Each structure stands twice: as C-alpha cells, then as structure tokens.
C-alpha cells in the first residue's frame, strides 16, 4: 500500500489541505460564512490525516488509530461539556497539548529522522529548525499550563497559578540568563556531528522552565494578551516542526496560526493601551490599589432596579455595555430577556462591546450569542462609539475600566486607552456590586457624574428585577 502514493501525490494532497485551512479562516469574516469555513477546516484536517495514514499503512497503524480514537473521544467530550465562560481555560489547555505534541515529535525526529523521510543523521539546517520548533513547543506547553491555572483560578491550590503577578527580584535577568544558556545548548546540539542527546535534553528542559517563568509575572488582567500570544507560539512551534521535517503543510498551517495569534495579541494590547513588551515583562496589577484613595468627598446617586426599569422603558434608545462581571454573575440570559421586553416596548436596544470585555478576544460576543442575543444587536466599540451622544440611556453591567473617561485625561494611568464613550449619553445606569475599583485600580469619575445612577447589587438579580418591573 505504501508505494500506492508517490511523494508528489502526497504533497499535492497536503496542498489541498492547506487551501482548506485558509478557507476555514476566511470563512470567519462573517457569522454567515463561518460554519462553512469550519467545514473546510475539518475537511482539510481529514485529508491531511488520511493521506498520512496511507503513508505509514505498512507500519503500526493500529496503535495510531487507537491513539486517535482515544484522543478524539476526550476532545469531543470536552468540547461538548465546556461552558462558554470557561473558553479561555479550554483554549489555554489546548495550546499546551499542541506544544507538548511538538516537543514529542521533535524528540522522535532526533531519534529516528528516517521515519520522516529526513536523512539520518539530521542535516545541520534541519537541526536548527528542530531546535527552534522544540523550544517554542516547550515554552508553549509550560506557559499554557500556567495560563490555564491562572484562568481556572487555581491560585489557592498552587502559588504559581496565582492570578496576581508572581514576581521576584532579578526575574528578568534570570530569564535572560536562562534563555542565553538555552541557546548555547541549542548551538551545541546544532553543531554536533552525532545526535547530541545531552545538549538537546538540557535545552528542552530549560525551555520548559522558561515557559513557566515567562508567564508567572503576568497578571490576570493581561490574560487576553497571554492567550493570544500562546496561540501564536503554538503556531510557530508547528511551523518549526514543519521546517525540520520539510513538510509544507505544517509550515503553512503553523504560519497561519502564528500570524493569527500575533494579530490578536496586537489587537488586545491596543485595546488595553499596553505595549506588548510591558505585558511580557509583567507585574501589572500587582499593588496599585492606592490610586483609588482620596475620593471620600464625592457623592454617588444610587437608585433601585425599578427606577432603572422606568428610565429604560421610557427611553427611545438604550445601549447596554456588558463587562466580564456580567458573565461572572451568569446574567446573560436575563439581559437577553430584558432586551426583548424593551424592544417590544419600541425601544431601540443595542450592545456595545469593548475588545477586552471578556477574558479572551471575542469572548463577550460568544457569551451573548449563547444567551441568544441576535448578533445584529451587538456592535464593536469602533462602530458604536459615535452613537453614545444621541443615546438616552446607557446601562453598564459589570464593566469599569473600559468605560472610564479618565482615559481622556493626560496623566492618568489609563490615558490613551480606547474606551466606550458612555459619559456622552444623556443618562448612565451603572450596575456594580460595590464601589471597588477595576483591574487597573483606578477610580472612575463616571460614577460621580450628575447624570449617572448607580444600581448596586448582583448583576443577575438586578436585571431580573428590571425585567419584572418593565411590565
């Protein structure tokens, strides 16, 4: 069976698979074409896997199939059971698997290059690429494990998973030194004539440690960037493995994923007004609570859920600004119900989404979609920011920093961060559990404006009360 397919045929089938992957990503340009895109992705993967199975048909296909069935069943189970609020954890966990798989493949490639059709001993060029693929894969693995722990809130069980930044003196110098040592061992592996297992093993071990050290100083607020970054790394690891095995499919797929993650990291950094470097260096959100002090003399106006219901039901236009607090309170379905009632009353209701409203890129959109909020009611920040000036009532649910007008004031900690211009609307309703400051540790002048009414309480309870009061 093995000679049934020539190297050319295999490569052509891999080309078809690569095109399918590109179409899968292209489909995501709109919700209507996205499902067809996903089907292309599945088709591409099926072609890739079946082609490769045909290549090893004479080998130990039984064990491979068994591993695929077991792994696939676990994946399918998790995909079905996971809650949408847990999406960031799931994605982090999946990144770690890609990273680990890349490392294992790299070790197998050092051990027996012939099984990949690569000359044994490995040519120097392939060794360099293998070195890169391995350390990126190892960093992806251990970094993603830490990110997973932070996102899943396992900080109490294990200190490295703390969502607060874990910092120690000289951290960056240690990281730099380790990175240099790792590259040194990588070079030794690269230059050696034989397999050079020792250099390879030490290099890989250091990479695993580095992955941990790179992620621990990054605080919970920066997680959207971290996940995007690890997404990117997992792609580059796949591409690196593709280079060392001379496999174009892995290179194409890896590069697509790598650039996707890089672009998402960029978008997230911009939305948080952080430079990529400052996120990586970490420490943000460690002990900056002092900024909120000195606000004792300002007064807030608070009202009941009934007041809020009255204001919204009698408005012409309402914009809802959901933040992660909404998801924590599991209030999405109540909000969707409230929106329906308001629309029945003839109110124009829309949602305004800040790019970092959730805990990963696009997270809030998925949470609203799950609550069956039609996507044509949901607007991105850039599309709706001009509309606040002509809006009667804005309801802010569990969001804080992303609606903070201090972003327009020079000298404030968040100066320059893109925010939703909620303060321009006629009336602002803010639901919060208390007056505590947001992730950035900043006070929010929006809460003290004359046109602002605070509605204190759990988001779900408050929204449910509003729903009742609208009738």
């Amino acid at each position: 069976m093995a000679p049934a397919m020539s190297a050319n045929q295999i490569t052509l089938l891999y080309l078809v698979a690569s095109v399918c992957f590109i179409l899968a990503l292209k489909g995501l340009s709109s919700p209507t074409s996205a499902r067809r895109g996903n089907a292309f992705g599945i088709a591409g993967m099926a072609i890739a896997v079946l082609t490769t199975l045909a290549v090893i048909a004479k080998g130990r296909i039984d064990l491979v199939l068994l591993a695929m069935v077991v792994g696939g069943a676990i994946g399918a189970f998790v995909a079905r059971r996971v809650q949408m609020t847990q999406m960031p954890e799931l994605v982090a966990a999946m990144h770690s698997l890609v990273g680990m798989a890349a490392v294992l493949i790299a070790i197998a490639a050092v051990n027996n290059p012939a099984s990949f059709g690569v000359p044994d001993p490995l040519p120097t060029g392939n060794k360099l690429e293998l070195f890169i693929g391995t350390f990126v894969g190892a960093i992806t693995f251990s970094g993603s494990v830490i990110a997973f722990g932070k996102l899943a809130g396992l900080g109490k069980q294990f200190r490295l998973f703390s969502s607060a930044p874990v910092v120690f003196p000289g951290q960056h110098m240690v990281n730099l030194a380790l990175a240099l040592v790792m590259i040194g061992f990588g070079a030794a592996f690269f230059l050696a004539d034989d397999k050079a297992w020792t250099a390879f093993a030490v290099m890989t071990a250091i990479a695993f440690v580095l992955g941990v050290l790179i992620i621990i100083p990054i605080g919970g607020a920066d997680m959207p960037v971290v996940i995007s970054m690890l997404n990117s790394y997992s792609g580059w690891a796949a591409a690196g493995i593709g280079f060392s095995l001379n496999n174009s499919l892995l290179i194409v797929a890896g590069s697509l994923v790598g650039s996707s993650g890089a672009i998402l990291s960029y978008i997230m950094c911009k939305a948080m007004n952080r430079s990529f470097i400052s996120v990586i260096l970490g420490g943000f959100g460690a002990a900056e609570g002092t900024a909120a002090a000195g606000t004792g003399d300002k007064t807030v106006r608070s009202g009941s859920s009934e007041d809020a219901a009255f204001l919204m039901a009698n408005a012409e236009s309402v914009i809802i600004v959901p933040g992660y607090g909404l998801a924590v309170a599991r209030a999405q379905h109540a909000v969707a119900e409230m929106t329906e009632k308001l629309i029945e009353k003839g109110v124009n209701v829309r949602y305004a989404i800040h790019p970092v409203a959730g805990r990963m890129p696009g997270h809030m959109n998925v949470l609203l979609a799950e609550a069956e909020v039609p996507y044509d009611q949901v607007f991105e920040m850039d599309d709706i920011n001009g509309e606040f000036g002509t809006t009667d009532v804005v309801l802010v649910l569990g969001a804080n920093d992303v609606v903070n007008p201090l972003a327009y004031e020079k000298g404030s900690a968040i100066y320059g961060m893109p925010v939703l211009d909620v303060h321009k609307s006629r009336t602002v309703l803010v639901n919060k559990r208390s007056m505590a400051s947001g992730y950035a540790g900043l006070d929010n002048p929006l809460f003290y404006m004359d046109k602002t009414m605070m509605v204190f309480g759990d988001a779900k309870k408050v929204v449910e009360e509003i729903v009742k009061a609208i009738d």
Partner: protein
Amino acid sequence: MSGTVDPTVLNLMVFVLAVFVGYHVIWNVTPALHTPLMSVTNAISSVVIVGAILAAGPSDPDFGSILGVVAVGLAAVNVAGGFLVTQRMLEMFKKKQPKAKGSE
C-alpha cells in the same frame, strides 16, 4: 545556474508566503468571531498530528515511535476538541435570526 535548491530555501518561501496570506486573512476576521478564531486555529495547529503519525509509523517499535503515538493522542484531543467547540460556538451565532426561520 546549477544545482538543486536546498529544501530549507523552499520551506522559507512557503513560510513567508503563508505568513502573508495569514496576515491578510486574519485582519478580515470580524472581531465578534475572535474566540471561534482562536479555537479553530487551535485545531489547525494540531495538524502536527501529521508529524506525530509519521513518528509513530515505523513497524519496529522504539522509543521514538512510542512518543509518536502519545503525540498522536495529544493532537487528536485538539483536533476533535478544537473543531467541535468551534462548531458549537458558531451554531450559537446562527440561531438568532428570528426573521429568517423559513431558510433552515
């Protein structure tokens, strides 16, 4: 001009072109679908399963092929999990067209 092109050079060509394609395709993705984008790219990057299958391939079992089998399992979790969870999310983005009920 003589001699054959080093495979690494060809790989580099594929790589650079793919990064360009990726850059342009990803910027066109609507921000509302960034989470499905991450889960589907996750599934796509587990195309390393191809490398894992090759590693597991040789009929004489050795240390490397065992690692290959393990890698196949890990990548398979991602392939199935990534595509299915993406599908699940995209279904949510579909349901909500109350006016277009007849089209399904």
